[in-house]
């Protein structure tokens, strides 16, 4: 039996949020929609596993997370846009009249974050999930979400300030001087 119409309608309603999350994970619009497409297919194939008392968006975001990780494992390049194409991709998605300079930096910094920090940061800041909800999506403890979000913020801000080398995200994240409270 295929998924019932009520489930399909919920799915349909969740597409805009899925697209936003996918866009923030893979940047390129087409690759992002491919990710959404595979999330929808997985959701339809496994609709019986969805508990209707739960928030369908959380369920779909966790499918997106897993689908994205699978994609990364299959093809590391999926996640990384070649530097010469970043500005092209940004321009394509940029609504007119916005501050391109600032946002370019911001997204470039976001893209440089280690994947686990980036997804935690996006789920909390952009998708506005609580730490507990993000933990459910990422299948890690809430404390891990808390430290990943904090680390991602600190590192990203340091890159935006130009106060940390962009080349070694993992090491800069661990640098004690960046975590110290003045």
């Amino acid at each position: 039996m295929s998924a019932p119409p009520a489930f399909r309608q919920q799915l349909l309603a969740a597409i805009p949020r899925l697209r936003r999350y996918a866009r923030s994970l893979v940047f390129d619009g087409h690759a992002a929609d491919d990710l959404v497409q595979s999330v929808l297919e997985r959701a339809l194939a496994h609709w019986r596993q969805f508990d209707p008392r739960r928030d369908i968006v959380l369920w779909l975001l966790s499918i997106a997370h897993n689908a994205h990780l699978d994609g990364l494992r299959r093809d590391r390049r999926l996640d990384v846009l070649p530097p010469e194409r970043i500005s092209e991709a940004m321009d394509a998605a940029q609504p007119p009249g916005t501050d391109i300079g600032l946002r370019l930096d911001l997204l470039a910094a976001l893209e440089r974050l280690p994947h686990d920090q980036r997804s935690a940061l996006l789920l909390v800041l952009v998708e506005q999930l609580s730490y507990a909800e993000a933990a459910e999506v990422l299948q890690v403890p809430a404390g891990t979400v808390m430290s990943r979000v904090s680390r991602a913020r600190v590192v990203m801000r340091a890159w935006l300030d130009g106060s940390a080398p962009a080349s070694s995200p993992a090491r800069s994240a661990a640098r004690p001087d960046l975590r110290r409270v003045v």
Partner: protein
Amino acid sequence: MSRPDDFSDTDLSAWLDGELDADAGHRIEAWLHEHPEVAARTRLWAADRDALRARLDPVLDEPVPLVLQHTAQRVAPPTRWAQAAVAAGLLVAGGLIGAAATWQWQGQQVLAAQTAAQAGTPAGWVQRAALAHSVYVPEPRHAVEVKAQEEHLARWLTRRIDIPVKLFDLRDEGFELVGGRLLPDAAGKSAQLMYESTDAGAPKQRVTVYLRKPDANAPTAFRYQQQGELGLFYWVEAGAGYALVGALPKERLLALAQAIYKQQPAPMPASAAAR
């Protein structure tokens, strides 16, 4: 390193995300007051958060690509086993009745519906009415293009779809007009009016009325169709095609359809109704 009474970046970050209780929040606010440099840094974090949202939120308002809409609405692709069964069935049935086209599995039914939609048959526009219903009814913020309160709604839609559009009053049936929108139709344009239930004690229900200029020789009979949980009443009358769509019990939907039928406007005098 930090003093014991200092707050770590993790604390500040959690505070910014609203994860701390009010008590801890007040202590951090008081502490930040005495540490303006740290406060400035948390403000930058907040600015980064706002910039990220500003950069990514516009995706929410982009039109959803059709291929994704279709994926969400289409029946699941048959499993390999089902495909094999169909193939085997076709081999046997093909010899007996020689008509692969009569073999229907779910995917083909949808295909047939899509083909009908392209062909502009009554089934086609009714299908489009159902699709438009499923697309816009779940929208919390952008369910309609023009709100019910705006006076020009009826005038605007009448001018655009070339048939008299009346804003049906369904309040006696417990539904209030939300608003309307213009939609693409096979040969031109159509309109959708959305109504929402007013019963405060029950979950909100939405129904839509799809209006279009009918094709020549379109059958005028009053018909009912059930598509999953959606019910559809559709008819052609006085130069206008109507489809009422909603996930309601048939009797309730019928009552609404009758209310609309009684209120429907007189045909347009000029060429509009003749074609």
